[in-house]
């Protein structure tokens, strides 16, 4: 159950110190930022043997910087910082804005962090699904060096990200904005403030003649990890967008059986994902004007 084994709560002041602690207490330490998943972990007995919590609030990872290779978002940047930054109102990044805004509630958005939401590796969280939609990369550092991976490769099963115990995710890098490209995110919930039953993220790029150049489609809470539906691009590439085309794609997706979850059956998810997909594409088209 709860944190019975906890010996200390450590608040390092920089990344180097954090990495040393992670190596020293390998397997016995957990990183904590917003702390919104901690209770869930303890309920599922996933904190057994954890003796140290390392709070990374003060190690300087709270930033949103525009650089040559795209937007760098620090791991401890909160959802509300994303919502209140006008960068993400641009059509290219709009899916991230919608996803962060859809996280409930306001109190959670004040403390929940970008890095934490990825490292939880939960299929129904909105921000990671939007990051996968936007082809975001993540920087993971350890004393041995650093590596940059696509965000979608980090997802393992529930609560088991592909990040080793002595590594730290420091930032997420969003690609540079492209011309005639918009992204959109739609989620279906039972109540006003809720986790998604299923969600759809779409990034749509039109060519200069107005044909579909690229379309990336991601389904949240559909598989145990964010699911990229490749069939959409196979069908839609180099075609003009029309209601007929959207209807045809709706008939062809999804290409996998969704998982059952506690709030909805696989049968239901399979039906509603089509409608959410349509809404997401229409949303992206609306942004493109």
């Amino acid at each position, binding site marked *: 159950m709860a944190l019975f084994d906890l010996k200390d709560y450590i608040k390092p002041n920089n990344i180097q110190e954090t990495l040393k602690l992670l190596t020293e207490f390998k397997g016995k330490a957990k990183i904590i930022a917003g702390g919104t998943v901690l209770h869930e972990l303890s*309920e599922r007995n996933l904190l057994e043997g954890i003796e140290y919590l390392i709070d990374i609030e003060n190690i300087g990872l709270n930033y949103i910087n525009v650089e040559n290779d795209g937007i760098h978002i620090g791991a401890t940047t909160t959802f509300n910082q994303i919502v209140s930054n006008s960068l993400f109102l641009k059509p290219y990044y709009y899916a991230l804005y919608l996803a962060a805004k859809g996280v409930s509630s306001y109190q959670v958005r004040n403390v929940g962090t970008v890095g934490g939401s990825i490292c939880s590796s939960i299929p129904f969280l909105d921000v990671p699904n939007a990051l996968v939609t936007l082809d975001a990369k993540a920087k993971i550092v350890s004393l041995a060096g650093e590596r940059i991976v696509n965000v979608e490769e980090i997802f393992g099963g529930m609560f088991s990200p592909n990040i080793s115990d002595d590594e730290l995710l420091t930032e997420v890098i969003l690609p540079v904005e492209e011309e005639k490209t918009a992204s959109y995110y739609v989620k279906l919930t*039972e*109540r*006003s*403030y*809720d*986790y998604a039953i299923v969600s759809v993220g779409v990034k749509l790029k039109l060519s200069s003649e107005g044909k579909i150049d690229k379309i990336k489609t991601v389904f949240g809470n559909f598989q145990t990890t964010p699911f990229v539906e490749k069939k959409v691009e196979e069908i839609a590439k180099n075609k003009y967008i029309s209601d007929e085309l959207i209807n045809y794609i709706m008939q062809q997706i999804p290409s996998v059986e969704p998982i059952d979850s*506690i*709030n*909805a*059956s696989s*049968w*239901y998810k399979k*039906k509603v994902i089509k409608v959410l997909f349509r809404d997401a594409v229409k949303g992206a088209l609306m942004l493109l004007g």
Partner: protein
Amino acid sequence: MINPKLVEGQIVGGSAMGLSIALFEELKWEKGYPLNANFADYKLIQQADLPEIISIATETPMPHGPYGARGVGEAGLLASDAIPNAVSNAIGKNVNKIPITPEYILRLLES
């Protein structure tokens, strides 16, 4: 009414509970164990999902009550019966189960 504010509170509160039962609340089980023994998965209605509830008391004395008074606590709960009837009327199918989730309505429509 002995205390009009209290009566209003009872009716609004009872209706909210009735709506919650009709639309969201369900304990799910697997092999005798509850699957949703927490308030993330056991859905209660939220403030944002509630409509404005207007209470109108029709005062009918109860002869056996003290000074003819009648309890009002459970009256609002009847919302949980009104909703299945309304849904049934709207879609022309028998609604035999609560909570009435979107998934349940879709299943009814396709049955």
